[in-house]
């Protein structure tokens, strides 16, 4: 299987401190990878660097087989066309309706007709289990969970090959988290989608994630499956996977 993302010896100096000292990992095609770690360990920063929103201090990033540093403006545009991103707070454009939000990447990257855009938007809304009447509403008129689902519909609007999720379950109730996890799973199964997510949701980690990358001390402390990391004896990793809350959560099958 080919590598979609390669990160090698990545270094980041931000706000007077080293966030990443030596981060290396790779993501293969159709893999669901989760980046975890304590707060402030640079998970979101790492996502931003892969998305070219932030320039790393040093190191090498390769995307779809091309080095990021050598990407032209056109190359970056082509890369972004193949990528969907779900931001933590949804990041819907507040001045546009839900419909226009989902249609935005279509208008930007394709020259589809209005009719094609309309059918695709409604299809995407259905896939995140939202009613079509949501489409006329402004983001401020939607609840947090609904905003999140509209944002997901926008992220998958153009059937991306690579999906980035920044805490996809924050603001969602357990039922919708489960719906979302199922959706991610089926997207991967049907379209061969590659997913990179930052999450704290252990139920997600244990159910759909193929590989967990544990960040800490500015590097990758460990990477592997949920079981492998759970058995890891590093104190940081151990406490992450073995708190009381987790055990209770596992008991009744709900991650809380």
């Amino acid at each position, binding site marked *: 299987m080919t590598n979609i993302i390669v990160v090698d010896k990545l270094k980041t100096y931000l706000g007077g401190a080293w966030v990443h000292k030596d981060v290396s990992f790779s993501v293969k095609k159709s893999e669901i990878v989760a980046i975890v770690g304590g707060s402030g360990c640079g998970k979101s920063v790492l996502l931003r660097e892969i*998305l*070219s929103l932030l320039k790393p201090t040093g190191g090498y990033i390769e995307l779809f087989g091309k080095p990021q540093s050598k990407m032209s403006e056109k190359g970056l545009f082509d890369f*972004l066309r193949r*990528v969907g*991103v779900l*931001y933590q707070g949804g*990041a819907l*454009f507040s001045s546009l309706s839900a419909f226009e939000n989902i249609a935005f990447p279509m208008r930007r*990257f394709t020259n589809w007709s209005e009719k094609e855009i309309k059918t695709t938007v409604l299809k995407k809304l259905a896939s995140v289990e939202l009613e079509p009447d949501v489409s006329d509403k402004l983001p401020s008129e939607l609840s947090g969970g609904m905003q999140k689902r509209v944002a997901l519909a926008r992220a998958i609007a153009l059937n991306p090959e690579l999906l980035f999720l920044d805490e996809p379950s924050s603001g969602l109730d357990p039922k919708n988290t489960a719906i979302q996890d199922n959706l991610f799973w089926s997207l991967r199964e049907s379209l061969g989608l590659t997913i990179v997510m930052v999450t704290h949701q252990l139920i997600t980690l244990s159910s759909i994630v193929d590989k967990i990358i544990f960040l800490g001390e500015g590097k990758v402390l460990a990477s592997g499956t949920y079981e492998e990391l759970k058995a890891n004896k590093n104190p940081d990793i151990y406490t992450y996977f073995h708190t009381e809350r987790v055990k209770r959560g596992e008991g009744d099958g709900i991650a809380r």
Partner: protein
Amino acid sequence: MSNILVRLGMTTTQMFLELIRFLEFIGEVAVTFFHVLRKPKYIPVKSILSVIENSGVYALPIIALLSFLIGMTLTYQMGLQLKNYGANIFIVDLLGLSILREFAPLMTAIIVAGRSGSAFTAQLGTMKIREEIDALRTMGVKPSEILVLPKLMGLVLVLPLLTIWSIGFGLLGGMLISKTMLHVSYRDFIERFYQAVPVRYFYTGMIKTPLFGLVISCIGAFRGFQVTSSGDSVGVETTKSVVQSIFFIIVVDAVFSVLFSWLKL
């Protein structure tokens, strides 16, 4: 002692870095501008019109009222002096000079900086906190193209128009007080205005206004992008936006004054 030195050094470096970021921002906006200019179908007409509506049309009442009041106050204060010498009719010369060349352009720019410059900063700052700016970038859109350019073009177009509006109401206020206090009839006022006030007063006042629009929109947008992830910083940057806009409006105005006196205009 060293504490002061350390702080001085840190502030200096920070200001220097900010200057570099500002130049970077101006460069990006300029590149986008010329890019759009080459392909006129990318000119964001709809967004420009919305800026003209929000920053121009809705500012008409407040600018009219304030200009009218300024015209009245100016006439009253200057009239007191002129009356002593019986030189009542010269109020027209003074008003023409001060309102056309300085008061109308400056007042309008300052009101727009307070109304719209602050709004630009708050809007972009909030968008940045809500990661909307990042979302735009990851959808292949340059924020400068759809967020900065319409504001810039809108203000550059609308500020001269607002200034003409302001001149009109400033002179109206002046005329009213001239009549009641100095007994200069409306007819005399207008006749004297034609004789005493050269057209170049109007041009020299107006030529500054697009530049004021540029200053307000660039600083407003730049400060918005400087917002960091806390809600606090929206307030801080909005304050900075208004203060710096007004500061640079006055600097630009002063530079023009010097320039005009060199050119003997």
